[in-house]
């Protein structure tokens, strides 16, 4: 049962991720990206990370990708130049490097030495448990992250004002 679910979600994830880079039009790339992000959220949900799954939907699919859509809508980009893949020597080199990456990663993750699988408590990955660790052990990084977000917001606003 879990295996079937895994293969379904893996197929959706991989095919939509491939579609992100194969699509000719940017808007369709963005839509494929949304599908990828939603299926990754599904994977998180399978992996007992329910909080992360919802944050993935809210933050990634609901906020970050909207920015992409906004950018494409503002630029009306597709009218100006079609989107192309690299070809020739550089393209072959890129393909080679990427394939090397994939091969190496898959090889190491298929064999790698693992610790024994831990037994999980019932609320593993729930909002309460993640929140507890986030606001105690990782409080300083959290505050830093919020400052980073503030800086980014100010920076983005500044850029768009100048232009």
């Amino acid at each position, binding site marked *: 049962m879990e295996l079937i679910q895994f293969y379904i979600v893996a197929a959706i994830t991989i095919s939509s991720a491939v579609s992100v880079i194969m699509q000719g039009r940017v808007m369709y790339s963005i839509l494929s990206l949304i599908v990828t992000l939603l299926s990754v959220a599904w994977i998180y949900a399978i992996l007992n990370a329910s909080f992360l799954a919802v944050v993935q*939907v809210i933050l990634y699919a*609901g906020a970050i990708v909207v920015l992409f859509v906004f950018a494409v809508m503002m630029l009306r980009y597709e009218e100006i130049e079609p989107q192309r893949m690299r070809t020739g020597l550089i393209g072959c080199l890129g393909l080679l490097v990427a394939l090397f990456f994939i091969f190496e990663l898959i090889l190491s993750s298929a064999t790698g030495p693992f610790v024994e699988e831990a037994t999980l408590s019932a609320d593993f990955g729930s909002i309460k448990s993640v929140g507890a660790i986030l606001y105690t052990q990782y409080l300083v990084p959290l505050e830093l992250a919020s400052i980073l977000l503030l800086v980014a917001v100010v920076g983005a606003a500044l850029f768009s004002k100048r232009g």
Partner: protein
Amino acid sequence: MFIDVAITLLKIAFVFGLVLNIAGILGWAERKQSAVMQDRIGANRADILGLRLFGLFHPIADIVKVITKEDWIPPGGDKFLHTLAPFLALFTALAVFAVIPFGDTLHIAGRDIPLVIADLNVGILFVIAFGSLGIYSVVLAGWSSDNKYSLLGSMRAAAQVISYELALALSVVGVIMAYGSVELDDIARAQGQYVLGIIPYWGVIAQPLGFLIFFAAAMAETKRTPFDLPECESEIIGYFTEYSGFKFLAFWMGEFIEVIAVAGVVTTLYFGGWQVPFIDSQGFFVPGLFTIPLPHLLVVVIQVTAFILKVCFFCWFMLLVRWTLPRFRYDQLMGFGWKFLLPLAFLNVILSGVIFMSFEG
């Protein structure tokens, strides 16, 4: 296994049947409401064999009209996305109902059936997540229409929805603080307590300011007057100008379903969900005095009915607001969201934190 699936399917059929029917009737109620408030008679012409019934057949007439209309896709537009957008609007609005509990746990034939379609442990965050996904229908509709004004309209709508989402999510934090859970089921159950023994501890008692912020922000999310700049049926060109026929109906239904969803969430978070004051699983009681035992099934039926009535009340209340208030100007709309509601929501979070801490300590 088989029975579980059957029960879930039954619950889905019940909830979606209810929601879609209320959405249909809301179309009629809106016309009647506007007519009453503008001193007109309103929809009353549709009849079947001379039977008019206050115009209740108008939704049927609407649907027949809309389905038989030509479905027009702009030649320069994107056919696939143009078709996808309205169904996305319907889907994201409907998905919210999966987590809204419409009754207490039903004990029947040795089974415990929680009266909610999917009892997820992320609860209210699921609602917010699908609320934020709803933006894509707006954006795609405007983009795929190949119309500058539709594009501008969809940008306006998207900016509005994103802006008010912040205040919406922040106002929910107060409720989470008050009941110590994000699960809507727990929140509804916790509202069965009583303050000072007699006042039901509903969200609106614990979070009066939070309720106002949430309701205002949620009204803006549904894109209805006074926040209906994205649509502005009569004046500005909105994002679904290039839609006709059944797809237009899908947007229209999506809007009404969003209204019902907001009413459902408001009821669950701030007005006790399925709780009826002074009725619990034991039966009807007067605090400290006596209890009249009621059969379990009757209690559940009362609670589900109470939930539906509360939802209908809030749907009606939103119609009332719609036909009472004039529309915001766009800068006022943005200013209201960012400069008023958002700081107020922050204040509400801080205030509730201080108050709950001091009560506990």
